[in-house]
């Protein structure tokens, strides 16, 4: 986290003051949309290992490198009751001692061959990614480490103690950030007792109580062959990719595929105000939105471009920022998850104009739901989404992310081939109907962090 603030090139990048922070909507756009036009279709290969692990692969020899993602349904929504943070801690411990190697030995061996091992964790997924040179010696050493990390994490007692402390510190450090406070409160208000309610990072008190046995049990039941999805992108042949998939999964447990998460109930309208010593209020408004397999996916996705997903091209940005100067960033998105993820609208504004900005955002949403986008707005949205499609698959990294989403969420392999057509098929009526079904402006969950007086 802090490494980014000071790492060699990132120093200057972070020191930049960028015109807009579209980062949120940007990331969400990536998650939401997996476009692929017919003319540039990726040849996605898919198979199962003899053991039954699901594999997704795109072969590309343009750069001498290989990217691998290994994902499990082991995100924070799988935390047992009272153990919020178990998924996070288990995931974080994977490479901190494994297969007879210490944490430092693992780090050295990876660095020696220039390989980069990373992790990612959200409510649904726990993933490990590896980027390595594809030259034989480097690749073999990097894969050896990845296999140990996936199959034989040691969960050493002393390291657990240390990492618990670091995890709790990072959670506490983030409490100074009003955006983080708002996001946590928003999910709590939206999901109540559903496992999506608590934050991915977990709860400090619960983390402090976790034991080595908790981690081992969680690892065994979640990091198993029936649960794993392997994605490979880059400079290997199909035969090699098959061998790598076998090698990476050989020692995983056979614990059964996990059951689906419960379906979230619709949230009731609420208004949460949290005091915070910040100069701005962070405002979040939303509802329980849609799941990955929702039939309204495309109308909601394309429609949201007009409402708040299209950056400077969106109504929220125009009303909140351009016309009134209320906020630097104003956006909305649907985050599709295994079960219904949130629909969220957000902005940040100085304290004394909080209610004014909130009213503008609410009115914009209300009007959008009542009237939908205009024909011209929808045409603009479709032009951007379909015309910008090649940018979404212009790097190995991006393609790898798409492979793992396809694999994890069990999207059909030909889903991408029809994506542009699906976007083009959306019309104003479909957007209006889909939003009317999903977003009720009288049942919104509202969270405001930063006002001096909590309610």
């Amino acid at each position: 986290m802090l490494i980014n603030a000071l790492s060699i090139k990132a120093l200057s990048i972070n020191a930049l003051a960028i015109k807009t922070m579209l980062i949120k909507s940007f990331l969400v756009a990536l998650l939401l949309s997996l476009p692929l036009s017919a003319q540039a279709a990726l040849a996605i290969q898919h198979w199962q290992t003899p053991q039954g692990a699901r594999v997704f692969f795109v072969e590309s020899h343009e750069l001498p490198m290989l990217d691998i993602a290994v994902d499990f349904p082991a995100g924070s929504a799988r935390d047992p009751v009272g153990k919020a943070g178990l998924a996070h801690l288990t995931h974080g411990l994977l490479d901190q001692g494994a297969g007879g190697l210490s944490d430092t030995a693992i780090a050295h061996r990876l660095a020696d061959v220039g390989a980069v091992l990373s992790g990612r964790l959200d409510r649904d997924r726990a993933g490990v990614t590896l980027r390595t040179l594809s030259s034989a010696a480097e690749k073999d050493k990097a894969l050896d480490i990845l296999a140990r990390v996936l199959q034989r994490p040691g969960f050493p007692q002393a390291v657990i103690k240390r990492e618990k402390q670091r995890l709790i510190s990072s959670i506490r450090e983030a409490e100074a950030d009003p955006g983080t406070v708002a996001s946590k409160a928003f999910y709590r208000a939206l999901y109540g007792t559903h496992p999506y309610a608590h934050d991915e990072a977990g709860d400090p008190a619960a983390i402090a109580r976790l034991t080595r046995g908790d981690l081992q049990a969680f690892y065994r039941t979640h990091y198993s062959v029936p649960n794993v999805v392997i994605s490979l992108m880059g400079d290997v042949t199909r035969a090699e990719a098959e061998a790598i998939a076998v090698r990476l999964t050989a020692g995983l447990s056979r614990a059964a595929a996990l059951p689906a998460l419960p379906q979230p109930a619709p949230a009731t309208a609420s208004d949460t105000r949290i005091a915070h010593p910040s100069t701005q209020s962070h405002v979040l408004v939303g509802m329980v939105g849609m799941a990955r397999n929702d039939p309204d996916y495309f109308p909601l996705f394309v429609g949201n471009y007009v409402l708040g997903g299209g950056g400077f091209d969106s109504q929220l940005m125009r009303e909140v920022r351009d016309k009134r100067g209320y906020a630097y960033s104003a956006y909305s998105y649907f985050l599709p998850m295994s079960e219904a993820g949130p629909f969220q609208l957000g902005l940040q504004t100085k304290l004394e104009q909080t209610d004014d900005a909130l009213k503008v955002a609410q009115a914009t949403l209300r009007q959008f739901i009542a009237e939908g986008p205009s024909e011209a707005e929808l045409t603009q949205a479709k032009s951007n989404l379909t015309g910008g499609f090649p940018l979404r698959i212009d790097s190995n990294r991006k393609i790898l992310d798409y492979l793992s989403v396809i694999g994890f969420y069990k999207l059909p392999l030909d889903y991408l081939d029809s994506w542009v057509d699906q976007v083009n098929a959306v019309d104003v009526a479909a957007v209006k109907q889909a939003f009317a079904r999903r977003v009720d402006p009288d049942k919104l969950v509202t969270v405001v962090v930063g006002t001096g007086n909590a309610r």
Partner: protein
Amino acid sequence: MRSLWAIGLALLLGSAQAALTDVTLDNGMRVIVHEDRRAPVMVSQVWYRAGSMDEFNGTTGVAHVLEHMMFKGTKNVPPGEFSKRIAAAGGRENAFTSRDYTAYFQQMQKDRLALSMQLEADRMANLVISDELFAKEIQVVMEERRLRTDDQPQSVLVERLMATAYQAHPYRRPIIGWMDDLQNMTAQDARDWYARWYAPNNATLVVAGDVKADEVIALAKQYFSALPAGALPERRPQAEPAQVGVKRIVVKASAQLPYLLMAWHAPTLKDWAQDTTPYALQILAGVLSGNDSARLQTSLVKMQQIAVNASAGYDAVSRGPGMFMIDATPAPGKSVDTLEKAIRNELERVQREGISEAELARVKAQVIAADVYQRDSLFYQAMQLGEYVTAGLPPAALAGRVGKLRAVTAAEVQAAAQQWLQDDRLSVAELDPQPLDAQPARANVPGVRHAN
């Protein structure tokens, strides 16, 4: 003229680096094209050699404010149209301002470069800054400052540290500007800035992607050649006087954890072929930090458990002076003093004993691999070209970077640590966390109690 060095060097290094074209138009505008055909897309960036370091006291932040105003319409393109046209063509666009430059970019399908150039050429010469739109946008910028700096305790610490480490050099001023300057800024300030710096002879166009260099040059001539060169003001060096002793500050801010930042004045790359110290300092940063196997992480976080995070950073490429930095968050129960002592011990160990050949080889392996990995990002490659050129370095310096880093010896790293990581060059900033539930001081929003 197509330059041949890139090809020659690529062969030497055994890599398949694409050729680079680097020309200057008659009006002084530089055009650099990096051909890369992996995907049918391109990125186009216009870099102006005008950043916050070119500002004056009283109008800090104006470089960045102007960047915002560049999207607010011209004589030919109404407000909001720029973004709308790029979006309609499937493009992504944005801009960024740094201490050294302001840059604007579009990412699009490869056949849409003409649109991007047409719009950029137009706003290079024809910008209209209305009082009305300025009044709205300056509010947006103040919100941006609150979001990125005022409400982020570690950002406040960085800002105050820079203002301490530099006393004369303009790097002491924040890119976003001081809030008081933003509150008093006028549309005329932005117009003056635009008139002073926005001219083809102060700009570099970098295009990377699935394009043909000769076609890009032809388009650049078509759209930019008609713009006249401007009379650029003389740039004074404003060199920072030598520091004469360690500097220390404490910043109180609402936060849960303390945080420590240490910064030493350091050289930057000037003569890329002859300089050695900047490369040695880059390797040093890699030995100390940069990945999970580096010294600060291994020693302070894993073994001694004095820190929960610790990292080092150094940027060799900039117009102004350089800085070698270390930041760290103490582990629970450990004081900032203890943490600083532990960091100093690590640095003294390098100064006294040097680094091992294994460590050196490890950092070099990462440099070589990272050079391959970065080719996965068109945007990053274009960005690096823009940064080098804006800092006054030739593209050859970028192509030669890996070779130079590979040539660094352990003795050079030790010597660089001895020479540059000295107390007389050091500024230290400590974040003193204040309770989050205390009633905050609202000095920067006078007269405001709270919102209901």
